[in-house]
């Protein structure tokens, strides 16, 4: 759906994007991660033909961009940084206006598509108020509705949940997962790890304009071969498992074991009361910090 090859963009002396080759496949929920200023937005703008690359090539939906960008844009819905709308017009009028701009939007189905998009983002009841009176979260939803109104095959979303409350974030996530199940490919950029972790199936990580990692999230989060055991009798557990315990923190143990079921059976057999037993996986935070080495404060990880 999206491939870039050796994509580079320089603004004056600043290299915003450096030799980036990403690959988003059909059906992906792709998350592009990176701290603020790592080049995510510049990359997104290049995919949409708003910013012209210094070198390298882009292909979106099989067409070269920016040369044939006008062929593919009708099939792409986008949120590009903050949403924007004409503040004196209502949310509905904004959507109608944006749909009327540009080619190939059927007038006959416009009302129905606008209704549907407003419904999808949960703005159905308040769409006649001027956008001026919208909260930040409502504007964000309206921006998403604008991306959905043409029923796109590909969604390119730059920080789509900015300004949303936890409920709004979950609503949008559920919506995106639903759309993806119906065949929409989703490309999302964010600096919020939990958001990407909860939504995406595949990630790319940008650091200072360079792509430092790209893989399936599931394979990045393979079990580490360690199991977290919590017990009321840690002494007996340590004695039973002997050298397998890597770390002990009060009642919590980190145990080296490839097979959690066998470990559990062994503990129960020895009479150790197991309160919980969890297969350890690397968190997205660890994965990202590993490859970027940046301070976690730049990633917006909740404390």
């Amino acid at each position, binding site marked *: 759906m999206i491939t870039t090859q050796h994509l580079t963009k320089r603004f004056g002396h600043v290299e915003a994007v450096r030799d980036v080759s990403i690959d988003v496949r059909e059906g992906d929920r792709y998350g592009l991660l990176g701290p603020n200023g790592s080049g995510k937005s510049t990359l997104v703008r290049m995919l949409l033909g*708003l910013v012209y690359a210094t070198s390298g090539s882009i292909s979106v939906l099989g067409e070269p961009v920016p040369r044939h960008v006008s062929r593919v844009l009708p099939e792409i819905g986008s949120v*590009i940084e903050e949403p924007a709308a004409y*503040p004196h017009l209502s949310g509905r009028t904004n959507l109608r206006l*944006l749909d*009327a701009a540009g*080619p190939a939007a059927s007038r006959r189905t416009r009302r129905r598509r606008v209704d549907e998009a407003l419904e999808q983002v949960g703005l159905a009841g308040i769409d006649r108020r001027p956008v001026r009176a919208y909260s930040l979260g409502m504007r964000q939803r309206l921006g998403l509705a604008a991306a959905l109104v043409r029923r796109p095959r590909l969604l390119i979303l730059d920080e789509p949940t900015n300004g949303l409350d936890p409920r709004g974030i979950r609503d949008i996530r559920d919506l995106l997962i639903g759309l993806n199940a119906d065949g929409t490919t989703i490309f999302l950029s964010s600096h919020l790890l939990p958001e990407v972790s909860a939504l995406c199936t595949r990630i790319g990580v940008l650091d200072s304009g360079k792509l430092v990692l790209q893989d399936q999230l599931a394979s990045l989060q393979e079990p580490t071969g360690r199991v977290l055991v919590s017990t009321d009798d840690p002494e007996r557990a340590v004695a039973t498992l002997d050298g397998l315990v890597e770390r002990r923190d009060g009642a919590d143990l980190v145990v080296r074991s490839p097979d959690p079921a066998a470990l559990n059976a062994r503990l129960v057999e020895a009479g150790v009361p197991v309160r919980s037993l969890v297969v350890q996986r690397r968190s997205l935070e660890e994965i990202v910090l590993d490859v970027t080495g940046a301070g976690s404060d730049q990633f917006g990880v909740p404390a």
Partner: protein
Amino acid sequence: MIAVELFKLVRRLRTWVSVALICLLPLVVAIFIAVTHIAPAPGSGSAFLSAVLNEGQLYPAAALALVLPVFLPVAVAVVAGDSIAGEASTGTLRYLLARPVGRTKLLVAKLIAVITFAVLAVVAVTVTSYATGVLILGPSRAAAVGTAPGGISGSIAPGAGGAPTAGLQPGGAITSLSGTPLTTLELIERVLGAMAFITVSMLGVAAIALFLSTITDSAIGAAMGSLAALVISEILVTLNAASAVQPYLPTRYWLAWIDFFRQPIFWRDIQRGFAIQAVYVVVFLAAAWANFATRDITT
């Protein structure tokens, strides 16, 4: 896309406020003249103004002369300067382009919206000032003052003509600036011609503002820049030392619309006026296109 731009134009309060303000100026002037019965002396003041006490139907011409030098170009510059820069600063530009709206198409649609605004303003001034002239000024009041037929403005650029007079003939028909009577039909034709010419006269400043609007993200900056160009032009037009460049200045033939009120119509400057505006539109639209089509949209 043109329909979208026109919709945005008419749904914007600013459009109507600025049209109302443009219409207000001739109304205020008319009220002062009607109350005091003091029209500018012939040969001084704005064009046609000295004649309007005698003939209210001429007031649209006087009103157009009043709004032409400042109000109209300022309003046009504000609308044109906002066209791309305003969308850039609110962020709607990137969404329009990602829709996709072709960049060239967007520029043309914006220019057409600006022209529509200029037409709207000129028509509104003409209609309201006709009503003002007939109701507040006009022949019924002419009896109260026995002023001589007025002359046209003394501030007219060299080449626009001498100082012929317009006004009321003894028979009551409106006379042309050349002194021969005009029928009502002729008067309507000539007012329409003047309206068209004045609208076209705004195209130069509109194109300059549109070009600046693609360079900066500040709508006010683009408007001020084009107005600065206009002020320089208006000053150079009156400066003898600048006579070498005067034929190429955007405001050089602005007052040629007055030639529509001569008998017969004096076409030379009118044609030149149309031509110079066309040149400005072509040059600055091309520059705007060259800049906008290759620019990174980072706002």
